């Protein structure tokens, strides 16, 4: 597939779960669109409960899809059976957040890494060993780790093993679900560099899910901001983060502390008047038909609570789901 072609295309995706009360429905994802070009990375950001992990699960066939479609490399994969998933796994792989739980503690690292190959009928021991050694080398581990168990490795090393398992089949798209958030800062940087190197070497695409906007800014070309299962804003990562077009995006960015005491204190003092702190309310309830962010939004007006905002084009070439775009941007000054 040549660069620039759409590798992944999600249209109107909705994932519903049954609520605790009888008959109630939790809309984990509601009408999500995204498209990912081959060789690029899209970052998905949002708070817990925003649906970002559900999006990954839906693409991986691990979540109940209510409506919408998912196309990967031109093929509709919305409701594939387990057997057809096997072919798909040549293209699509995943790395999870918690490296301790994503590796089976009872089987050796070698057995874990070779599993995708065995699934595709490669059982020749020599070839397996060769490819395991190559995958381990790509993630910066020495080949003698194959006979050890995951418990003998640190978090960063386990994450490298999980990446090696995803890489060994030469996929085109890797879904990275919070892959660095459980890691220490110095290890996080190593893994981010590794992912960036691998992307360059193999023309990999990433769907990169993270709550950390700095990480997403670093690794992604595109960004998708989710809140309560809906798209708030999407666009080019650097542009969106520099000039957010949705109040929620701005809130997310401004909440991430800057690692510079002067800049951070300046930012927080400037914003002190905006929202009296202590605003954590009991439940974030919102009108189904309105904007989910309206109860927390300082720019909300009547229409925001009763009418669902459509996705509008922004001046920067992205989309935002805000009734008050662009006038809120002028109001914040």
């Amino acid at each position: 597939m040549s660069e620039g072609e759409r590798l992944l295309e999600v249209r109107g995706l909705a994932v519903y779960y049954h609520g605790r009360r009888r008959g109630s429905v939790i809309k984990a994802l509601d009408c999500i669109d995204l498209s990912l070009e081959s060789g690029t990375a899209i970052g998905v950001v949002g708070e817990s409960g925003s649906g970002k992990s559900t999006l990954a699960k839906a693409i991986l066939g691990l979540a109940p899809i209510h409506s919408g479609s998912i196309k990967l490399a031109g093929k509709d994969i919305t409701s594939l059976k387990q057997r057809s998933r096997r072919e798909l796994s040549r293209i699509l792989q995943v790395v999870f957040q918690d490296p301790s739980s994503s590796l089976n503690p009872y089987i050796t690292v070698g057995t874990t890494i070779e599993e995708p190959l065995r699934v595709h009928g490669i059982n020749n021991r020599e070839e397996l060993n060769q490819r395991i050694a190559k995958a381990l080398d790509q993630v910066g581990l020495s080949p003698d780790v194959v006979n050890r168990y995951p418990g003998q490795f640190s978090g960063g090393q386990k994450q490298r093993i999980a990446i090696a398992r995803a890489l060994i089949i030469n996929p085109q798209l890797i879904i990275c679900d919070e892959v660095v958030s459980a890691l220490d800062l110095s290890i996080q940087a190593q893994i981010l560099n590794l992912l960036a190197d691998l992307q360059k070497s193999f023309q990999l695409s990433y769907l990169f899910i993270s709550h950390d906007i700095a990480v997403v800014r670093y690794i992604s070309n595109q960004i998708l901001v989710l809140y309560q299962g809906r798209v708030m804003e999407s666009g080019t990562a650097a542009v969106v983060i520099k000039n957010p077009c949705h109040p929620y995006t701005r809130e997310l960015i401004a909440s991430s502390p800057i690692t510079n005491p002067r800049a951070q204190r300046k930012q927080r003092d400037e914003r002190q008047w905006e929202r009296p702190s202590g605003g954590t309310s009991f439940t974030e309830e919102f009108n189904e038909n309105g904007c989910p962010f309206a109860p927390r939004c300082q720019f909300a007006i009547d229409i925001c609570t009763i009418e669902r905002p459509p996705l509008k084009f922004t001046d920067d070439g992205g989309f935002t789901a805000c009734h008050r775009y662009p006038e809120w941007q002028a109001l914040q000054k």
Partner: protein
Amino acid sequence: MNKHSPTPVNPNANKVTTGTENAGMQNWSLGRVLLHKPLALICGGFLLLVILGAIFAPLVAPYPPNALDLQNALSGPTAHHLLGSDELGRDVLSRLLYGGRRVFPGVLEGVLTALILAVPIGILAGYFGGILDRLVGAITDALLSIPTIILVLVVIAIFPKNSHAAMITFGTLVSPGLIRIIRGETLPLKDADFVSAARVTGVSDLQIMIRHILPGVIRIVIVQGSFIAASALGYMVALGYLGLIASSGEAEWGQMVASAGALLNRQPWLLVPSGGLIGLIVLAFTLFGNALRDASAETIAATPGPVSRGSSPLERTAQPQGFSPGPSNKLLSLINLSVAFSSRSRDILAVDNISFDVNPSEIVGLVGESGAGKSITSLAILRLLPNAARIVNGQIMFDGRNITGMNDSEFDRLRGSSFGLVSQEPGTSLDPAFTVGSQLGELVHLHDGVNRKGSRSRCLDLLNQVRIRKPEQLLTMYPHEISGGMAQRVAIAMALAGRPKLLIADEPTSALDVTVQKEILALLRQLQLETKMSVLIVTHNFGAVADLCDRVIVLYAGQIFEEANVFELFDRPLNPYTKGLLLANPSNAQPGQPLPIIPGRIPSIGSWPTNCRFAERCPYAADECLAGPIPLLALESERKSRCIRVDDLRKEGIL
């Protein structure tokens, strides 16, 4: 940048080696368990001996089972009959050995039947859930309601003397309990990320169950199997005793017990070998199962870290002077504090000679990666160290008093009113069984000794203090009904109940979303301004440090690596480690450019080198860094840095 040519430092940035690591018994094997558990070794050895004795009875038994020796009837232990003889002079030892040939096959049948039924059914029910699970649940419930002994007796009545039928029935009837256990073990496994990863790869359900689920449940199966074996043995003996599977006079354990019982008045000894052996075997099966269970629990809990035994013994590094307890206007002073974990053979340092102060009304940040010792330091201050850890050296002064020397009751009096603790997981600091009001009220009552009404108004004050909008409503709520951010506010209110002089916050925002983190940080700052308390915040998040702290202490591998005012630390770190950490932060990086990383990783507790502990990862390490322990150097404007090359590196413009 000056290159130091003879640097024996691993420059390979991406290569990670694991040679030094020894994470204990990760691969669970019977052999290792036996080595670590003497009791299991004894029980297993005994069972093996008895079973081998039964198998090779014709070879090892001194007499045939039915050889009569009427002269020596009922002899008791003699040289001819080591365990005595019965009323017809038959050798008891030989009969026991031959009797095992009847009993053990029956036990095996019972256990195998249970396992063959329970393992696949339990895994299938747990894995697929849904209708299958409900069906299995209904059937197991029904089977569990049948009294096993009665059905076994019915089967024996239909198939007289048929121990196979009896034990297969037994196995079938005990399998429901095992099915439930295996199903319960399967449930968390089937949702584990490694199963998701396998599924994404296209591994079939059958393969997932065999390759991923089965290894996870096999341990519990072995353990339960040995309990079932004990019970099966009891059944075999009981059926033999009743004469249902053996004729009277046969070399069969139940029959031997029965005849010994009848002859109890004439030769009491006769009951000892048979009854004792049966008792011992049942005991051995049970203890063996228990030992296996304990061992497998330890395996799952084993992680690299304090339990791993490293190479460097407890040692003292040279410490620069200048940390003597001076005239104290400090609120908290740690003086040469060392904390060690005790293992079987020796102590392993986790915190090595740490000295720092917290001034009144000051917010101090204790930062570092995992394994740096930051949490252990804060726990040592509060005397909340885990059991294996203890303070091995140094003092903690609080408000002019040496709190390391206090006895527990003295310290308890001090703890509530002087310290407050806010921990990382807001959920775990609240008891799910009680309302917020009753938990907070209990603390208020403890500290203020006030009545219900006074306690309620103080609770509302505290909740107002942490900016909760409808405090009356919150008091009646249970912890699961409130959000993480709210729970952290309640935890802070609880910490404030005793009006502490020092609030210790251990990763107070790490589990929270950024928007909530911002609010909690703002709250901590406002509370500090209002109450003038000091705050010691333990964190790995430099953003939180930049937001909140006055002064920062950077820990690495149990030592202080740098200490400075927050502005100076971020403007100009004077230690290569601090500098490296700040640069590695993706928020400062250009997309497309590689992040400037620190290669390798923090040496684990117990394998700290004697030289600079960061040298292996430091791009500027030179011979002098590897020559010996590095002192913490005092620099200008009350800064400290543990880097002997700090002056060189400043001249070179690196720091």
